[in-house]
């Protein structure tokens, strides 16, 4: 197992964290790879292939628990239902927010 970086403890406990960001963050072609457990090594290998051969900058995320992410999503959905007008982001979208648009966008108020 690799040593744990300092700032990912929360991510590990909540279900996912960015394990290795793409080396070239400015590349045109972007991708996010999720791996969990032993297959994370395959994702890292794919990241290398994509970067060196195809110019695709891929971030590799380690998913520690799909079940936690699922529960978090369900809980957040429920919380948002019980708090109309307010919107909380689930961990899945929070962790992705740096590279991807958030999925819990506020409802249109027309």
């Amino acid at each position, binding site marked *: 197992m690799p040593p744990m970086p300092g700032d990912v403890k929360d991510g590990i406990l909540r279900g996912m964290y960015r394990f290795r960001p793409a080396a070239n963050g400015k590349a045109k072609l972007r*991708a996010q790879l999720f791996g969990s457990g032993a297959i994370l090594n395959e994702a890292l290998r794919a990241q290398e292939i994509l970067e060196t051969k195809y110019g695709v900058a891929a971030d590799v995320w380690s998913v520690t628990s799909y079940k936690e992410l699922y529960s978090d*999503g369900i809980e957040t959905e429920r919380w948002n239902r019980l708090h109309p007008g307010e919107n909380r982001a*689930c961990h899945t979208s929070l962790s992705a927010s740096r590279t991807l648009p958030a999925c819990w966008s506020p409802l249109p108020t027309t």
Partner: protein
Amino acid sequence: MLVAASDYLKTLPNMISKWMPRRLASLGTDGFGRSEGRASLRDFFEVDSRFITLATLHELSSTGKSNARFSIKPSKTSASTPRNLTRSSRSAVRTDSFRILSVANGALTSDPGLLPAWARVCGWLFLIGQTLFISRIVYESTVLTCVDGPQMVGFSMAHGGHSFFLLGLLFLPFGAFFFLVALVFGAVKRLRFSLREWCSWQPSWSVFRFYLCLTACGSI
């Protein structure tokens, strides 16, 4: 582009796909229980690094962002086919199921490549030899002959350059070989161009290349 690889069922990453901002391509080991080495199993269930790469490039190309060329074995048996339970399934576990040739940014086309590399080399060698041969003949018949007298040009054009014929012969085997291979591959692959591609005023590079091959064949 989001690609999730799992050693468990595809449904596991799919569980959270509804909270993803984009479509999530999910790779997993759906199918029948098998006992094998990790590498072969990941090849069989199509979850290893090559398949993650393929899935990513495919997702990118489906949005028109990337144009990848693959050498895939489309007949690779799906892991969830009952046929795999039979003895012949061993041959389905292979590590050369597909190879990714190259990728370029641009319009989305599928260019499988008409001929293998060695046949293309033969074709190009032949083309180079032919070009040298023809240009030398033209040079001899015009510029060189003009020195003797302009009235000889017509005479010489009618007879050609016999001495340089040997050079043409040297490259002829490549051409003959290429011609045969092109015929066989054309028949086997049935020229995977659509009718629209053939009739287009702006034929794709592959069609143009095929015309080039035809010209090369015709010049024999």
